């Protein structure tokens, strides 16, 4: 594990650089590229063993039913590190002038794992099954725009059109297999006659077009996949991928140190440090657009006051608290969108300033020694959270810092499933801590737009935030045709939201991935991360391994 052939390593780096170049240079060069680490003989390729984890194994391998974050499938488009769409199974596409008709031209050289060619019929079939109400797909609403379904049609064997009821700037991202979208092209010939999709034999024996083929799965324990040598981008650099379950991070780290596995994503700062100090291991990091935030109930007697919310943000030393409670390398967010073209540079930033917090509260009429009061109302509220690793520490730190400026914050810690119901269904909280973000496309509308009165029981905006100007900006952003136009509206919305101090933004999700030096050829996904350790790599097929 400690000695590695130098030549192999440098070749791998060459491979990674080549991918970087293709991302800039366009599609055609991708086809020419072959993994340099892979030798002519199958036997010479290594295998890759990584941590799976119970919650990270998909319940079924059918992407219509749940997320399948393994390397079995492809979508129509993908995204580069700057979140610009690049071709996947569609080698090109056109968008009509009015933004309503998308025409996808498919690659003609793609075959499913069983050898059947992938054609337009498969794409239309996948889209129609997603929209079929009988299929219990949680992704149906991705293809419903303004209450109307997107209409998918086959033009010829390799051309597909999608007709939208109204323009949607985020539609292209919904044809990718990225996080939260999971539009994975499925083989029509295997699923066509299936009456009950949840009972399809396919769910335990999946067939896709992706870089790896399904071999075997022992429920929640071990998933084995083998290289798909007919993968349209090229022959994968490893012959086999194994994902194993470890009960916790410590045991995954122990397995990494012992050389039993090659990759594990880590969260706890102590484990990351140990991994960094272990010879033969390295740690890769990237920030994502997911931000851990405290959202306020906007009709709460205390928190409805903008002065109180602003004072809370000023009173909490967010940057140092995040570094102490989460990780010394974690970044702090200031807005619903923090990275990429959609992040506004003009948001109101609430820097740490306890004196200013006190002054704001004094001016707003919240006065008194100890816990402040106003008109007999104590400046007191409760934060609801679930023990998502650093959340209890963050809350404890906030509690102390708020006490110093005369604000009382009580802590109500719930188990994850209870938290979901209490917050998102019952709306029973003063303030809650949870992750806020998005997969690929910076669509934040559902979390910030005014809830329609009396709509469904589940709300993305349980805090009942409502600002008519934000509604206008976000609605305009979702129907805008160009990225420039969307950017302008998204920036405006963020500036308004931060001026309202509508949330307290804490750490960005920082992926920290420990890798054995035996692994090469990888490129981390930049900011467009899938939130799971299969999203560690942008190009899984390029990974190489010296493990025999």
């Amino acid at each position, binding site marked *: 594990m400690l000695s590695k052939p130098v030549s192999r390593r440098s070749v791998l780096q060459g491979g990674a650089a080549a991918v970087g170049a293709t991302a800039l240079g366009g599609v055609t060069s991708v086809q020419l590229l072959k993994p340099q680490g892979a030798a002519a003989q199958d036997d010479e390729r290594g295998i890759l063993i990584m941590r799976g984890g*119970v919650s990270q194994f998909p*319940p*079924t391998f059918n992407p219509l*039913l*749940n*997320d399948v974050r393994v390397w079995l499938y492809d979508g129509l488009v993908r995204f580069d590190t700057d979140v610009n769409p690049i071709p996947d199974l569609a080698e090109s596409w056109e968008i009509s002038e009015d933004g309503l008709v998308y025409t996808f031209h498919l690659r003609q050289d793609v075959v499913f794992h069983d050898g059947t060619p992938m054609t337009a019929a498969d794409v239309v079939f996948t889209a129609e099954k997603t929209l079929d*109400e009988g299929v*219990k*797909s*949680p*992704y*149906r*609403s*991705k293809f*419903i725009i303004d209450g109307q379904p997107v209409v998918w049609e086959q033009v010829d064997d390799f051309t597909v059109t999608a007709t939208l009821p109204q323009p949607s700037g985020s539609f292209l991202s919904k044809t990718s297999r990225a*996080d*939260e979208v999971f539009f994975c092209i499925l083989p029509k010939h295997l699923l066509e006659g299936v009456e009950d999709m*949840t*009972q399809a034999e396919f*769910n*335990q024996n999946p067939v896709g077009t992706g870089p790896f083929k399904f071999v075997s799965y022992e*429920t*929640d*324990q*071990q998933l084995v996949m083998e290289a798909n040598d007919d993968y349209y981008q090229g022959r994968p650099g490893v012959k086999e991928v*194994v994902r*194993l379950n*470890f*009960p916790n991070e*410590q*045991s995954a780290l*122990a*397995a990494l140190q*012992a050389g*039993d596995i090659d990759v594990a994503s880590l969260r706890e700062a102590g484990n990351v440090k140990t991994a960094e100090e272990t010879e033969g291991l390295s740690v890769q990091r990237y920030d994502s657009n*997911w931000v851990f935030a405290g959202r306020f109930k906007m009709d709460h007697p205390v928190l409805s006051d903008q002065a109180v919310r602003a004072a809370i943000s000023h009173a909490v030393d967010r940057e140092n608290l995040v570094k102490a409670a989460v990780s010394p390398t974690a970044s702090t967010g200031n807005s619903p969108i923090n990275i990429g073209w959609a992040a506004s540079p003009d948001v109101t930033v609430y820097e740490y300033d306890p004196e200013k917090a006190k002054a704001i509260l004094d001016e707003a009429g919240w006065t008194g020694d100890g816990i402040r009061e106003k008109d007999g109302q104590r400046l007191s509220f409760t934060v609801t959270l679930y023990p998502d690793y650093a959340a209890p520490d963050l809350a404890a730190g906030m509690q102390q810092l708020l006490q110093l400026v005369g604000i009382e914050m009580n802590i109500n810690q719930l*188990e*994850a*499933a*209870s938290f*979901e*119901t*209490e917050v*998102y*269904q*019952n709306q029973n909280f003063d303030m809650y801590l*949870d*992750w806020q*973000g*998005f*997969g690929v496309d910076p669509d934040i509308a559902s979390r910030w737009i005014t809830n329609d009165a009396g*709509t*469904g*029981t*589940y709300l*993305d905006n349980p805090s009942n935030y409502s600002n008519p100007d934000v509604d206008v900006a976000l609605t305009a952003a979702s129907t805008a045709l160009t990225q420039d136009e969307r950017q302008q509206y998204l920036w405006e919305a963020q500036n308004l939201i931060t001026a309202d101090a509508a949330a307290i933004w804490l750490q960005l*999700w920082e992926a920290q991935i420990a890798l054995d030096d035996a692994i090469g050829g990888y490129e981390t996904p930049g900011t467009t991360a*899938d*939130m*799971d350790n299969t999203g560690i790599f942008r190009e899984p097929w390029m990974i190489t391994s010296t493990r025999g």
Partner: protein
Amino acid sequence: MVIPTLFFVSLISFAIIRAAPGDPVRMYTSSGMSKADAEDVERIRENLGLNDPLPVQYVRWLEQAVQGNLGYSIVSHRPVTELIAEKLPASLSLMGISLVLSMTLGILIGSIAAVKRYSLFDYATTIFAFLGSSLPSFWLSMILIWFFAVRLGWLPTGQMHSFRPSGPVWLDTAKHFVLPVIVTSYVGLIVWVRYQRSSMIEALNQDYVRTARAKGLNSKAVLYRHAWRNSLVPIVTLFGFSIANLVAGSYVIEYVFSWPGMANFGFDAILKRDYPVIMGVTLVSSIFIITGNLIADICYMFINPQIRNSR
């Protein structure tokens, strides 16, 4: 007696799990940190019949359960019976080995401690048992994992087998069994030791033992035939109790050792609120406990003819 017990177990567990907050659809559609769309969640809940009144849902479940169909997992959509059957061997082998080990060792150690009362061995046993009953099993597991798996690297940290073991498969599997078996049987062992010791002491103080000794029978025969065999009669009742303990304890042990068994699977189902799986696992667990008690009764009859005759 068995059928009404199972019925009440199912009714109570149904009531408890449905009274707890949480929603299976919301849990499994919220992948990672994202939240599923409200409409999608509602539609799926409706499809699964989760919006029907609870009594209707319970009766629907019961009707199927009586016919041997425990329903489908809400998360993986696979039949619950099939999933449990897949997980059962791992649990049964761990529990079986531990039961045999703790029972034989416990009876042996307890008997010796009683015969050599107030000896160093007896004191050591008492202290050992006292320590054992005050150490939580999850703590003991973590200490053992830390020492033998992480520090020394002799044994694996968890699971039942390695991917591609370096040596023979049986050796690899045996290594995986060592730590969980130690913890599970240790917890059981101390109970057996304490009961057997007091039961044996009681037997040794009986008149018939004194008579046998007075008759001049050699002391080995007295110990084995008169004292030891009689001391086992009250101990047999411990068997049923032990199985209940093993089943309950497996929820901790399997989780800590990431054991691919039914308890670990059931625990995960509780976190995900996968109602049909929770009901199935609870039902199978209670069948074990009831069967354990039944076996204890039968053994008791077998060992003590008085009971058999009186019936």
